């Protein structure tokens, strides 16, 4: 039963839970919160199970309404999509577990129901993008996640609404570009099913119209994943949004768009034509590399921690783009591994800022001082761990994605990339140690013990800590993940 319906279950679970929210809110005040994180946990379990199942027994294809694929909509669960489903479920479960009080604070206590409904719809959109095998269906889920995303990102302060509105405009352009691309493909191939389109395009190669379609699709998804020149919506949004929303969207949103790019780029579009005629991979690689450096440099210039993390996201997306652009097994492994690593790292870091905000501490780096270490030891330790992982020091998770990317760049003989990765790690070190120095060194200027306000709720420090510790686990378990799950999903190069 589960195996058969596996591709549909995470999406349906999220959708139904979201739709049930108005009812749940009637039954109990804390129920939306509990349902949402438990639901995410269930999705993570489904993803993990599916990962295990599909990597041993091959992908599962699911025809919606039992209409065979070119006619009906098809969902696909293969190791890659299950991997992403797992990442979505696992990361969001802890973010949502953490979220209860910050949501009430940032979005108003009477809004928890709509907030959690939107959050679940956001996640439903994400898992839909990941699970679908149909180009237009992907657009629908892209828009579900986008709408829910504008809501959760814009529900805080008026500033949040403003940046969310700007994001809405740019995000709609992205989604519409994608839709135009799909339309062109439909006109040229007559099909919307990914596997079908793949077969047809491989037979025919690229014509001018399909080339334009590729460009539209790539630009559209590039906007969604905030690839370097299309990234400028991101810092404002992440900085102004409520803490929980950022922690939910930042680790997952751009990754899911990257997933779509990975899927469509590697599997749907004809690889040879993309690589040789259009040089798409080279372009993405170059943009990724520039994004890495640019994001890191901008991050150094920021004083607001959230803004710094946002720019750092731009850089980290660059890593994923580089792995994608390398178009080699190592690059692919690096990119996929970095997706999960970065998701956990960023979630952890944004939860740290959420904790800071919750305790009434500012998120300005200049305002940090060593008294925090005493007031919030767990939070500070988590920040340190995630920061070390971001810098890419072994044996934290971040090191290993870098390792595979380096392997990939050597394989391609691309020296510039090696330099870029090395330099960016140093830049990462610069902006993270700036914060660490303030947290761990210098005089404890805080007031006496008793004067500090209430302690951080246990769930908050707990979920931050779980994410931080899983970075270590991901670091040590990377071989297991790579050999067991990522290697079977390698596309033919």
């Amino acid at each position, binding site marked *: 039963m589960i195996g058969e319906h596996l591709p549909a279950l995470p999406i349906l679970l999220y959708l139904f839970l979201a739709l049930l*929210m108005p009812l749940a809110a009637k039954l109990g005040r804390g129920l939306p919160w509990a349902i949402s994180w438990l639901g995410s946990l269930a999705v993570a379990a489904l993803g993990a199970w599916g990962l295990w199942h599909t990597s041993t027994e091959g992908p599962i294809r699911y025809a919606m309404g039992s209409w065979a694929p070119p*006619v009906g909509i098809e969902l696909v669960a293969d190791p890659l999509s299950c991997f992403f489903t797992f990442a979505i479920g696992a990361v969001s479960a802890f973010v949502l577990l953490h979220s209860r009080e910050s949501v009430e604070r940032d979005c108003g206590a009477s809004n928890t129901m709509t907030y959690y409904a939107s959050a679940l719809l956001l996640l439903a959109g994400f898992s839909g993008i990941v699970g679908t095998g149909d180009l237009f269906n992907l657009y*629908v889920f892209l828009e579900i996640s986008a709408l829910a995303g504008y809501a959760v990102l814009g*529900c805080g302060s008026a500033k949040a609404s403003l940046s969310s509105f700007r994001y809405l405009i740019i995000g709609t352009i992205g989604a519409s570009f994608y839709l135009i691309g799909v339309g*062109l493909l439909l006109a040229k191939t007559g099909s919307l099913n990914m596997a079908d389109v793949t077969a047809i395009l491989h037979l025919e190669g690229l014509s*001018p119209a399909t080339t334009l379609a590729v460009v539209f699709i790539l630009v559209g998804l590039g906007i969604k994943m905030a690839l370097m020149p299309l990234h400028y919506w991101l810092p404002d949004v992440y900085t102004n949004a409520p803490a929980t929303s950022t922690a939910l969207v930042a680790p997952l949103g751009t990754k899911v768009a990257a997933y779509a790019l990975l899927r469509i780029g590697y599997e749907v579009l004809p690889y040879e034509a993309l690589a040789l005629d259009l040089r798409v991979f080279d372009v993405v690689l170059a943009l990724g590399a520039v994004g890495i450096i640019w994001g890191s440099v901008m991050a150094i210039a920021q004083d607001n921690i959230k803004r710094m993390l946002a720019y750092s996201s731009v850089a980290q997306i660059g890593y994923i783009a580089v792995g994608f652009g390398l178009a080699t097994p190592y690059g692919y492994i690096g990119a996929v591994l970095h997706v999960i690593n970065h998701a956990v790292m960023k979630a952890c870091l944004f939860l740290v800022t959420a904790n800071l905000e919750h305790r009434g501490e500012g998120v300005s780096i200049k305002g940090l001082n060593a008294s925090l270490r005493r007031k919030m030891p767990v939070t500070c330790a988590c920040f340190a761990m995630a920061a070390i992982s971001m810098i890419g020091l072994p044996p934290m998770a971040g090191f290993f994605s870098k390792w595979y990317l380096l392997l990939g760049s050597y394989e391609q003989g691309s020296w510039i990339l090696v330099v870029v990765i090395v330099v960016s790690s140093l830049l990462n070190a610069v902006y993270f140690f700036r914060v660490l120095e303030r947290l761990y060194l210098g005089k404890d200027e805080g007031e006496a013990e008793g004067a500090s306000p209430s302690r951080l709720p246990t769930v908050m420090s707990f979920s931050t800590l779980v994410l931080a510790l899983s970075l270590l686990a991901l670091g040590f378990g990377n071989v297991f993940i790579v050999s067991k799950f990522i290697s079977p999903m390698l596309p033919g190069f």
Partner: protein
Amino acid sequence: MLYVVRDLPPRGDVEAPLHAKSSEVGSPAAGTYYIESSYKDAGTDNIVTVVLADYRGFDTFGETVVVFAAGAACLLILRGRRRS
């Protein structure tokens, strides 16, 4: 742009891939299949309705959810902040 437009099937072309009976790799083309079998499958005259609600019902479910999401979003953004 003209170059690209030329590559598209002409307007109203019955031979366009979208309207073919089957695609180049032999899979049935969805559009033609819908026309031919919708009445047989669902006993409904309006083909678009069948496509919308049956063959691609999941899209429509998604569409309904989008509407719901918009409602939730508007409420979330504008309601309940009188105290701030």
